[in-house]
């Protein structure tokens, strides 16, 4: 029997297991046995990946940087969702609230997500820093540490940050572009009351990470199976809709620059003991 490939994934909700079960079953059916190991947080997953306990991991952007930091760049990003590419974070403000430029946020409170959320905290804080606004100096940072360890995979922190803005306790909140789109469509955010003040530089999100010396043939076979999943297949569509993608695409690491700078400026890895 072919040795199964072991894949790691972090679960922020039990329902997420359905996504990986569909993927696992598809790989099995295509002669590519795969075991999926779930982790409660990315730190555990990175530890298992770097330690060789799992072959491939579905890494958040921060987990990708952690993996490279801990392993001294011993991994490659082999695949990602089409929707992981070119994301951005919006700074949302109340219309008519007197905030029309980033400079107007001086002396104000900005609500953000969890401390380890790339899209809701690390990247927007870095963007503000690059634009002359330092947290704790030029503005007060109000953080919503929901499910720390899961790198903001869930929407909890961002939603709480928006509620903080909506209740008048903050002058702005941060929101992933996709969440702005969803929430203004489903009524969570009223676009007549709130608007986008500014948008960060684009960045990339999750990637599948694998060690550089992972057997090339196994990697190629695994990628062939992954890329053959199509939105036209109803079973794959269920998974793709849940995971928010239309297609798997080759991995790239060119979109992690702003997060890398954020992590360095905030001494994030030193603070978490890496």
């Amino acid at each position, binding site marked *: 029997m072919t040795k199964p490939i072991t894949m790691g994934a972090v679960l922020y909700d*039990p*329902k997420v297991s359905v996504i990986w079960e569909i993927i696992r079953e598809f790989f099995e059916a295509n002669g590519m046995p795969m075991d999926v*190991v779930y*982790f*409660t947080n990315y730190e555990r997953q990175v530890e298992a990946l770097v330690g060789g306990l799992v072959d491939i991991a579905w890494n958040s952007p921060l987990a990708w940087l952690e993996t490279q930091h801990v392993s001294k760049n011993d991994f490659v990003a082999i695949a990602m969702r089409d929707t992981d590419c070119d994301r951005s974070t919006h700074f949302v403000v109340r219309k008519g609230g007197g905030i029309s430029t980033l400079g107007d946020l001086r002396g104000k409170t900005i609500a953000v997500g969890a401390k380890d959320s790339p899209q809701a905290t690390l990247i927007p804080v870095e963007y503000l820093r690059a634009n002359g606004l330092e947290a704790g100096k030029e503005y007060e940072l109000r953080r919503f540490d929901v499910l720390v360890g899961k790198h903001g995979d869930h929407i909890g922190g961002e939603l709480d940050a928006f509620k903080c803005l909506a209740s008048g306790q903050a002058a702005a909140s941060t929101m992933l572009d996709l969440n702005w789109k969803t929430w203004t469509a489903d009524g969570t955010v009223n676009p007549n009351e709130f608007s986008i003040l500014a948008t960060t530089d684009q960045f990339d999100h999750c990637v599948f990470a694998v060690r550089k010396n992972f057997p090339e043939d196994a990697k190629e076979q695994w990628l062939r199976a992954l890329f053959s999943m199509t939105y036209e297949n109803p079973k794959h569509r269920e998974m793709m809709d849940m995971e928010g993608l239309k297609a798997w695409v080759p991995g790239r690491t060119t979109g992690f620059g702003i997060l890398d700078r954020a992590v360095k400026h905030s001494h994030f890895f030193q603070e978490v003991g890496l």
Partner: protein
Amino acid sequence: MEDTRWTLRITAAPPTGASAHVRKHTFAIGAPMSFDAEYGAVTALEYLLGALGADLVGGIQSVGRRRRVEIDDVEVVVHCTLHNPMVYLRVVGEQGDAGIRAIEARVYISSLEDEARVRAVWTEMMETSPVVNTLVKAVRLDCTYQQVL
């Protein structure tokens, strides 16, 4: 008097399901539980909750008939939460157990009878129903009823 025993035979139905054989009946059971809304079978957990709901619905009808209290309809909505469903999924780093934390059963009794008579049916049913009286000792079970016309 010897204890009355109920016996079921449950056999595997690969990959994760089962078939339960009882007296002259057989029913299919899916995985212990599922988080997939599209999952194609009733899970063991759902059967347990269904059994509680059936115990309430059947008990009210049965007690009502004996007391000659006219019950037009009964409906129950059952909600359940687990201590930590991640443990069932073997998520590395999760703690606790995957057992039921709480069950909430909201019973709607449709009857034109006097409120006191319906209440008496409810009270007797709660005192005598086997599944209710088992689960109440094991989990946080909150059963309430509302009489509707």
